[in-house]
């Protein structure tokens, strides 16, 4: 079997209602986490980005042809690429995770037809009705010409995209990958999710990480922000969109095995206002790790969205560097040491585990 390569993080880009910027902006927020401001959308509070913030991130001529969720993606991707200093011409892959894609454009496209028939259809909107639109437009914006993947899974889209990107680098498929997640808040979608019993507060935004083979990153003297030492993803048994009962996780064991058997000292988990799901996650973590480790989630502060899972990986790198695990409720940070686990568990059983350590 091919030797697996060490994977490091060399750039981070975060765009959401609480912060915009690279790893220093994320670090400053993690040192004193404050909840993103919420506004009512579709009858529920949501951590929505102010329009002026987004307008400031994209040039108007470019923005004309980019849907809102594509703008969020490109804004986050560009910050990460800039921080890493990587030259995309040397080969850059792209993995984008999203729970909801570009429903805003899909709804507008359908509305055009319902209002005015065939001549009401917009050619400009049509490409946005396919969920790879964020990846397609971002690949053009950052000149990424290697593999390009868009992953649509409930709940753990961001974690999965980073895990998938790390696996591609570790397995020697590509030397560098821009991996992350994005989602936006749309009023009709928020209303529909509410009607379907979706519980966590929704947020929006994009978080992207530049992942590289450690050897190539060191060779170009890149600043290394953290390491991803092992990743795995599996499915726990559950009805679609249901909460399961079994706690035995193969994903956590497999990620730890890839990381040389390391035991994590702390966890970023996907716990949220969805109490049944959070209880299941606690049982899974306890069964795999033997105890209740210090844990953070950030979901209540930033809102559930595809970018959040990727943000947790970037946050884990910060925690591994700083030795501080932020508290979701405003209490002082917990002092921790050693590597940690980023854990995602979704309704339906989607299950992702990443072992993250310091450079």
């Amino acid at each position: 079997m091919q030797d697996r390569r060490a994977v490091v993080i060399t750039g981070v880009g975060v765009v959401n209602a609480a912060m915009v910027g690279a790893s220093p902006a994320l670090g400053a927020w993690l040192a004193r986490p404050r909840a993103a401001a919420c506004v009512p959308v579709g009858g529920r509070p949501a951590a929505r980005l102010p329009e002026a913030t987004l307008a400031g991130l994209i040039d108007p001529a470019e923005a004309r042809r980019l849907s809102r969720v594509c703008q969020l993606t490109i804004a986050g991707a560009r910050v990460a690429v800039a921080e890493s200093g990587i030259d995309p011409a040397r080969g850059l892959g792209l993995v984008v995770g999203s729970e909801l894609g570009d429903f805003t454009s899909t709804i507008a496209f359908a509305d055009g037809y319902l209002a005015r028939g065939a001549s009401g259809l917009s050619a400009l909107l049509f490409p946005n009705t396919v969920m790879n639109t964020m990846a397609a437009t971002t690949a053009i914006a950052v000149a990424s010409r290697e593999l390009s993947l868009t992953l649509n899974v409930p709940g753990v889209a961001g974690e999965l995209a980073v895990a998938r990107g790390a696996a591609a680098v570790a397995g020697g498929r590509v030397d560098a990958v821009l991996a992350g997640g994005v989602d936006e808040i749309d009023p009709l979608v928020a209303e529909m999710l509410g009607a379907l019993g979706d519980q966590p507060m929704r947020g929006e935004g994009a978080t992207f990480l530049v992942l590289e083979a450690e050897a190539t990153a060191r060779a170009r003297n890149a600043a290394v922000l953290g390491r991803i030492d092992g990743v795995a993803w599996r499915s726990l048994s559950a009805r679609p969109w249901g909460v399961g009962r079994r706690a035995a996780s193969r994903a956590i064991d497999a990620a730890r095995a890839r990381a040389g058997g390391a035991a994590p000292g702390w966890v970023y988990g996907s716990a949220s206002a969805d109490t049944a799901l959070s209880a299941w996650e606690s049982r899974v973590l306890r069964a795999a790790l033997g105890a209740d480790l210090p844990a953070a989630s950030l979901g209540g502060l930033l809102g559930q969205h595809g970018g959040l899972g990727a943000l947790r990986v970037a946050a884990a790198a910060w925690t591994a560097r700083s030795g501080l695990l932020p508290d979701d409720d405003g209490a002082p940070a917990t002092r921790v040491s050693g590597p940690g686990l980023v854990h995602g568990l979704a309704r339906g059983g989607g299950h992702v585990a990443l072992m993250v350590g310091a450079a």
Partner: protein
Amino acid sequence: MEAKEVFDELKTILVARLKFDPRRAAEVAETTPLPKGVEGSIGLDSLDFIELSIAIEETFGVVLDESEELTAHFASFETLARFIVSRRGAA
């Protein structure tokens, strides 16, 4: 319909269908070029031109046949307005 009226309608289409900012649309002159890559143009690409053709059909009733060579007519607002006026006259 005169060329001036057509030009004003095209500016409306710039905003309503091609998503231009109203201030940017108000700034265009008859001589402003349309296609991307031409100096001073408003930068339309192939997808924009498809959207524009749909809008022209809906607004002016002029049906565009893709098999025709139409590039010269889409060079600027002026050439496009004249083209639309002549097609409407012929109809």
